């Protein structure tokens, strides 16, 4: 027997959507930026993500049973980004714009001393398979936990844990090897399935 949930007023829904927007605008933009590597496309992706989210907000709320909606938002951005690449048959314009270092909350000291090291890490991230790269973006740029990432990627919690572990190990190997200068990967890793 299903429980009858009273419908919310449009005013209430809009107010709640506004809260969602304000709470996660930076998350969506950060994800979009690290995903596509370009400020212009990241802006478009962010805008389209919230338009889609607004259209489906009521349904998402009713089906979420009170669970956080951030994974749902990021999943929208994930799908839009995938479609963007598929339709344009193009790759992200990595490396990340130089302006990233200024937009991100780094200290001046880090900018001077750690820039080269951080650049190597970012270069390494772009070499990862798509799914591993996305998982790392969600974990480290957005601070999502395994369960949230699993929901955003449509995977099990266990598969997500393995995905992140392997992504970090692979990236560590890439960054730690100064001779590694492989082209960026554009395919998913072997652990693409949900099992």
């Amino acid at each position: 027997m299903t429980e009858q949930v009273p419908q919310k007023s449009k005013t209430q829904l809009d107010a709640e959507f506004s809260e969602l927007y304000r709470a996660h605008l930076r998350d969506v933009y950060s994800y979009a930026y690290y995903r596509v590597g370009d400020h212009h496309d990241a802006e478009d992706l962010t805008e389209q993500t919230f338009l889609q989210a607004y259209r489906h907000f009521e349904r998402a709320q009713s089906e979420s049973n009170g669970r956080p909606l951030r994974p749902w938002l990021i999943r929208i951005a994930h799908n839009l980004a995938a479609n963007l690449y598929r339709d344009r048959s193009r790759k992200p314009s990595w490396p990340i714009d130089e302006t990233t270092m200024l937009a991100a909350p780094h200290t001046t000291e880090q900018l001077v001393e750690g820039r080269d090291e951080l650049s190597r890490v970012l270069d390494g991230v772009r070499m990862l398979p798509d799914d591993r790269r996305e998982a790392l973006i969600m974990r480290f740029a957005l601070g999502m936990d395994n369960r949230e990432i699993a929901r955003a990627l449509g995977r099990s919690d266990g598969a997500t844990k393995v995905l992140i572990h392997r992504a970090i190990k692979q990236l560590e190997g890439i960054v730690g090897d100064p001779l590694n200068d492989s082209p960026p990967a554009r395919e998913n890793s072997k652990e693409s399935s949900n099992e």
Partner: protein
Amino acid sequence: MSEALPNFEGLLREALAPVEPPEDLILRLEGTLTSITEMAVEELEAWELSAMRDPRNWARPAVAVVAGTAAGTALVILRARRRAQQPPSGLRGIQRPSFDRSGAERALRDLGRGTRKLFGDR
């Protein structure tokens, strides 16, 4: 052979620091969201049910399609902020040609399935 890096996750966290959205994006997006709700309200009020059955009326402006059944009261908070900052009016954000519309439409379809998969698994 690769060498182990100390505090690699900390380094990764620094490299992938959150990126603040540009102010012009914020203004445009909030203006767009507000416009969607306002336009949808106005259009739905003027849109008789009989007209909806006429296929000639199905080619609605894209913004009305986006708003769809979610149209209603404006986003009060966003509207207040928008009016305070008075960004350019209109729907320029929605109609920007740089984003592939077919991709967005396909994403809409994917989203329906995605939402169900996301929340229907428990």
